[in-house]
């Protein structure tokens, strides 16, 4: 049912994930998809950049050159962002938040370079959100007393009346779902929109879709990256509290 895709000429509209090749993994058929390929390309770009930055910083000078300036700027801005929202416990999270920020940002922007953004696959965003979920859980048990956690679970009611526990559990489980779906749906909607513009308008879609690229890939991608990292930091900082261990 090809005509089901859209009303007219839908044959060119294509933003789905495709299998590149398949192999057998313990009896299951497993596909290497375009997402894997794009993730590897993004990783390759980041690794090359990291090695270049490392080589540059090894012979860093007092008066920085252009590339050293860029690297220092990136690190300073990312660390500043973590500092603002996590305060005392920030130094422990510089590395993780910085890595996730750069990875998601480059993934979102890779739509500009003709890749299918890896973050437009739920299989990429869900693990990222699950890492956040694990961080929240671990920090909760690390920094809060069991009695406080129980009181949290019964939250609007007193602690001897645990009627609200199931609802609080569900609201906890909703965190990774909403985090991952937000990122996924934003990037997917941008990808789908660009595919519709290029697929349905044909020759008419020359030059002016650049403006759409600026909005869907650059602006939306950057905002969603920031939101993901910001929410991760806020949730974790909430659990850490004033940083005294139990």
């Amino acid at each position, binding site marked *: *049912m090809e005509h*089901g*895709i*859209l009303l007219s000429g839908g044959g060119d509209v294509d933003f*789905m994930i495709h299998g590149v090749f398949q192999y057998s993994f313990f009896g299951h058929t497993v596909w290497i998809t375009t997402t894997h390929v794009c993730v590897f390309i993004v990783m390759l770009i980041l690794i090359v950049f990291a090695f270049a930055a490392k080589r540059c910083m090894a012979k860093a000078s007092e008066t920085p050159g252009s590339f050293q300036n860029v690297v220092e700027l990136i690190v300073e801005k990312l660390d500043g962002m973590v500092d603002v929202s996590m305060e005392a416990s920030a130094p422990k999270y510089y590395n993780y938040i910085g890595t996730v920020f750069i990875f998601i940002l480059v993934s979102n922007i890779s739509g500009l370079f003709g890749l299918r953004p890896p973050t437009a696959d739920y299989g990429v965003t869900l693990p990222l959100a699950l890492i956040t979920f694990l961080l929240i859980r671990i920090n909760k048990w690390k920094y809060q007393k069991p009695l406080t956690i129980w009181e949290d679970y019964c939250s609007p009611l007193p602690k001897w009346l645990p009627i609200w526990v199931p609802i609080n559990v569900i609201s906890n489980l909703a965190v990774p779902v*909403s985090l991952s*779906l*937000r990122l*996924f*749906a*934003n990037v*997917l*909607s941008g990808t*789908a929109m660009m595919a519709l513009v290029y697929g349905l308008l044909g020759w008419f879609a020359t030059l002016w879709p650049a403006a759409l690229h600026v909005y869907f890939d650059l602006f939306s991608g950057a*905002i*969603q990256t*920031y*939101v993901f990292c*910001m*929410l991760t930091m806020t949730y974790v900082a909430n659990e850490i509290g004033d940083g005294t261990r139990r």
Partner: protein
Amino acid sequence: MDFNENFILGCSAIGAGLAVIAGIGPGIGQGIAAGHAAAAVGRNPGAQSQIRTMMLLGQAVAETTGLYGLLIAFLLLFLKPLLP
């Protein structure tokens, strides 16, 4: 009772159209956020950059519910889960 495929596809399209009505809510919410941010900047122009960050953050979070609707529409249109 069985329906033919075209009927199911048509109903899926109607369902997709209904699902994106969810965009109304975030639209109103983002408008309110932007309006209040403008009022806040008017009252305290010094805090403009902080207010902008907070507004964008709140709007991006509020956008999520609309995107759920969009996701349902995409599922109905492109994955066609209702077809037998």
